[in-house]
């Protein structure tokens, strides 16, 4: 059994993976303090959805959750569990009954949760009260399978968790014999995911002036499409290639959101799991207020870029951060009230 954690800790229950979905991994807030070792930041690609899902079950914002991609997993819960799913709009079922997402969910022991195909967006986050148990590596439980840390979930895997309340809180609405949901939903955030063309705000990249005026203009005027080779390291774009500079760049640090243009002229937008350094010229950098949107681009999605100043990027970062704090406080408070209502234990 490829154990992800000690599953036999006293008092622990197991969730068993019946089907892994397209690409499911354990993620938290990643490893911001180990980049000097060449370790990617990583962590949940939609950082806000990670926080929200955790708050819905009463966790700290950075507890380890399952990040699911495109098609989610089918999971069996040994004991009762307090869970929530945030991020993209997935069709979810419990014991075959449709299950609304974006709200606190109580599951009874033996429940089978199936996160099926995504309807809008691309990545979802399944949180469980107490967090999924795994040994932290370099201060984080985020999987980085490429470098031997954690793994991509496979059928038969088991993860330990602390059992949730034995009965649903009074205010919860039953959806099956072994599942009930809170009477409120934290919608709203997904409205940021545009249906047709995703607009990404960028500032000038470190090598923007290496590109000709024509290439710079074309980058902003063209609509780009997400290529299937995209992964947690980077979103590869396709479209009419840009004229890439011939100059050689000595490798230098990069950030998630850096837009690299290799010799083939097709931009790559780096994601949170990107390498810490890169040798391709960078035409632009996606502002951090828009980084979570990258998590919801899927092969075939269309994107366009809009330029803002660095000052504006910092201002937008502040606004985004303050709004997120207010929203997450509200989510945490509503969730607390819901779980505290009589009926649970």
């Amino acid at each position, binding site marked *: 059994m490829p154990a992800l954690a000690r599953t036999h800790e006293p008092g622990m229950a197991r969730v068993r993976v019946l089907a892994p979905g397209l690409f499911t991994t354990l993620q938290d807030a990643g490893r*911001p303090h180990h*980049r000097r070792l060449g*370790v990617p930041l990583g962590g949940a690609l939609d950082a806000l959805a990670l926080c929200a899902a955790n708050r819905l079950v009463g966790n700290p914002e950075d507890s380890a959750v399952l990040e699911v991609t495109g098609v989610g997993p089918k999971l069996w819960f040994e004991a009762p569990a307090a869970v929530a799913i945030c991020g993209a709009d997935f069709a979810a079922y419990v014991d075959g009954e449709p299950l609304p997402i974006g709200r606190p969910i109580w599951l009874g022991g033996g429940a089978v949760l199936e996160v099926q195909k995504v309807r809008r967006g691309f990545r979802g986050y399944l949180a469980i009260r107490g967090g999924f148990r795994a040994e932290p*590596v370099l201060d984080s439980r985020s999987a980085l399978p490429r470098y031997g840390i954690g793994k991509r979930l496979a059928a038969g895997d088991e993860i330990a968790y602390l059992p949730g309340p034995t009965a649903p809180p009074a205010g919860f609405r039953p959806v099956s014999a072994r599942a009930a949901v809170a009477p409120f939903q934290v919608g709203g955030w997904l409205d940021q995911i545009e249906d047709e063309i995703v607009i990404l705000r*960028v*500032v000038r990249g470190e090598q923007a002036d290496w590109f000709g005026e024509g290439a710079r203009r074309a980058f902003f005027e063209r609509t780009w499409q997400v290529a299937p080779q995209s992964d947690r390291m980077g979103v590869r774009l396709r479209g009419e290639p840009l004229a890439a500079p011939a100059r050689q760049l*000595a490798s*230098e640090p990069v950030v998630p959101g850096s837009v690299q243009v290799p010799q083939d002229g097709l931009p790559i937008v780096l994601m949170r799991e990107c390498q810490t350094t890169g040798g391709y010229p960078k035409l632009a950098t996606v502002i951090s207020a828009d980084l979570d949107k990258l998590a919801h681009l899927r092969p075939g999605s269309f994107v366009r870029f809009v330029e803002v100043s660095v000052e504006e990027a910092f201002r*937008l970062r502040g606004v985004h951060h303050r709004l997120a704090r207010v929203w997450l406080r509200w989510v945490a408070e509503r969730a607390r009230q819901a779980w505290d209502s009589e009926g649970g234990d």
Partner: protein
Amino acid sequence: MRLEFMGDQALLLRLPEDVPIETGEALDRLLSLRAALLRELEGVDGIEDVTMGYRSVAVYARFEDVAPEDLLARARRAVRSLRSLAAPRTIAGARVHLPVVYGGDFGPDLDEVAERAGLSPQDVVRLHQEGVYRVAMIGFSPGFAYLIGLPEALRVPRRATPRSRVERGSVGIAGFQTGVYSFATPGGWQIIGRTPVALFDANRASPSLLSPGDVVRFEAVTEEEYHARFGAYT
């Protein structure tokens, strides 16, 4: 020195393009700069990490906890404090010996490197061991060290077509650089040998064997010695 923000996530301090990186001149200046930066940033909230490139140092920050202007002012002070030094001194790093099996299955490009360099494979192996290398930066994958100090005669370009998988421990050459693949990854460097030493191990006290400024030498070993030492890291 040029200072610029990387998006709204980090501050990059970059040396002028005419500072040579192959000779170690850029490295010496960056090591001094990094030391000065770390002094200026001591105790400052919101500093996530300070990393190095060939010609630059990046400070990653949580700008909710440190104002961009504050970080910029501190970085400028660090740069000014260096100007008072007549010349950057070489900051001594750790000295590390890496055993290498050259050629054969472990070094599939040894013959090609020899041919391009107009040398015999034996000369390539001898010259590679004679080099005294310095770690210029860590990147590409965890623990991957970019080494400078490759003898001129061995400077051959990358492979025309990158390999989809280069084995962990592979010792490669790309232009003026040599280095060791710390994980099995795709890669385009010319592979001349392999070391049994783990360049990265998340469970070690120092997960990355090498840091910028460290001095590295390579030493030819037999395949038997390779297997005997696999997993060792000293």
